[in-house]
């Protein structure tokens, strides 16, 4: 039996801060997650990330891998960052199939026997007391054994995990089960995480959505994400548009948000666009600043596609520009989340947030944040707020 790992917090963090915030600190312990997708790799990335984030937080993770040799799995898990490798417990299901001796402590010797699979996993869970368990994956079992037996094992694993206070993730692609069975499986889970990919104009976009099964539970929008070596999963916004009327401070906002940015400007006004790449607390975003003057509106149109969200920058000392600001919002299109940055809020005569909200006739749920972009005040908060709105939780 292994030494107990470091005591764990009440919640299992995903390692994506903005997501953990939405989940009130992470997934509760114990809980059951169903990682569901129509393609194999997507949900595995989440499962792997979840396992490694646990290890990085000093917890112990148990990974049951029906598809990969343990050496390969260990190698691939390293891409998510490093931690104490002894806290990663692998249940080896492949060596016996290849007639190789297993180097892992736990190995399934007869892959044709559900009983042997069951016993090996449960023994490992009881002995190691991991705080995170990943079963990769249930469709492997559903394809090979009678449905009732697999569902019974499924329920038993949930119980065993619950008894030790662990979060257990089941990876599952449905090929053969009927909707009725799927409903049952969803009902056994506390959270369902769905994954999807789409291809538009030669660019692949991945997104995920988290739904808590309990009534009035958490439900997010589709959250775009990307994978980064040694960091793991990151929320990724391919385009945040920074727009607003002339001389409101859009370029300064882009500059304040990003470490490295470019601005194509002449005589102090943006003639083409500003661009910056932002990395903060588990979010990566590409920030595009548009010109404010009407004669450059055609440039605006080039960049106003596939926009995740908008930071609308206005000059709080220039109420006469507010109608123009609203008009620019219309150019982006409806249903795109936006936050209003009341910039230059330190100058005399600056309107209050409420005043701006009233004059622009903004919906109740649109935040107006006072900012001083030249001093980097309020700007980052506005972006985080926008990120939360895009991710959405209800």
């Amino acid at each position, binding site marked *: 039996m292994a030494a107990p790992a470091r005591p764990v917090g009440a919640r299992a963090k995903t390692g994506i801060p903005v997501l953990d915030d939405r989940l009130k600190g992470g997934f509760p312990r114990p809980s059951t997650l169903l990682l569901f997708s129509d393609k194999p790799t997507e949900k595995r990335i989440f499962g792997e990330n979840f396992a490694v984030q646990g290890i990085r937080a000093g917890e112990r993770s148990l990974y049951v891998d029906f598809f990969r040799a343990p050496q390969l799995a260990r190698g691939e898990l390293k891409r998510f960052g490093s931690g104490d490798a002894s806290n990663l417990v692998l249940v080896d299901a492949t060596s016996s199939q290849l007639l190789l001796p297993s180097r892992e402590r736990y190995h399934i010797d007869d892959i044709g026997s559900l009983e042997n699979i069951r016993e090996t996993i449960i023994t490992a869970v009881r002995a190691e007391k991991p705080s995170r368990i990943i079963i990769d994956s249930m469709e492997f079992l559903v394809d090979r054994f009678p449905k009732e037996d697999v569902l019974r094992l499924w329920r038993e694993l949930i119980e065993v995990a619950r008894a030790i206070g662990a979060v257990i993730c089941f990876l599952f692609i449905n090929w053969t089960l009927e909707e009725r069975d799927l409903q049952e499986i969803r009902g056994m889970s506390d959270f369902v995480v769905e994954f*999807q*990919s*789409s*291809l*538009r*104009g*030669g*660019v*692949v976009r991945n997104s995920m959505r988290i739904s808590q099964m309990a009534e009035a539970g958490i439900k997010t929008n589709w959250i775009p994400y990307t994978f980064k070596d040694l960091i793991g999963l990151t929320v990724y916004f*391919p*385009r945040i548009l920074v727009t607003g009327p002339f001389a409101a401070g859009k370029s300064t906002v882009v500059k304040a948000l990003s470490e*490295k940015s*470019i601005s*194509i400007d002449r005589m102090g006004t943006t003639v*083409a*666009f500003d*661009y910056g*790449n932002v990395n903060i607390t588990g979010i990566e975003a*590409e920030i*595009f600043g548009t010109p404010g003057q009407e004669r450059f509106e*055609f*440039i605006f*149109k*080039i*960049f*106003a*596609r*596939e926009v995740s969200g908008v930071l609308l920058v206005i000059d709080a000392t220039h109420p006469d520009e507010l109608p123009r600001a609203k008009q620019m919002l219309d150019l982006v299109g409806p249903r795109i989340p936006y936050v209003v940055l009341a910039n230059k809020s330190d100058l005399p005569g600056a309107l209050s947030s409420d005043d701006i909200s009233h004059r622009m006739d903004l919906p109740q749920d649109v935040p107006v944040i006072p900012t001083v972009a030249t001093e980097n005040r309020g700007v980052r908060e506005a972006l985080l707020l926008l990120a939360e709105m895009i991710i959405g939780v209800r």
Partner: protein
Amino acid sequence: MTADAGARLQSVLAELRRLPGILGVTIARRDGILIAHSLPKAMDPKKIAAMAAAIVGTSEMAAVEMGLGSFNQSIVDTHVGMMMATGAGEEAILVTMLRNEANMGLIHIGVDRAVESIAAILRPEEVPA
């Protein structure tokens, strides 16, 4: 299928980059999002993609305003070499950076061929992968 399209675009870029005098090549979407690139380490592919989209968008508008017909290519000519931004189908732009010593005849043939391949690779998609 997506991985396949990506690999095919990379091989188009690799072939073009083999021509003497070429410094780097990038495929960008017309709205400034990077699709694929083969560039020296020092260059930021995302910035180049955004800039190319702005150059092409501006050039297209200028061509329309000036009654010069539809857009083919923008060229930025410098004392070191050239940047060519060529339309590749409805969605994409091929950015080619080259030195002044490059053989322009060969380059033009290579770019034309690459543009056709890129347009063909990106055409039959738009179905969710």
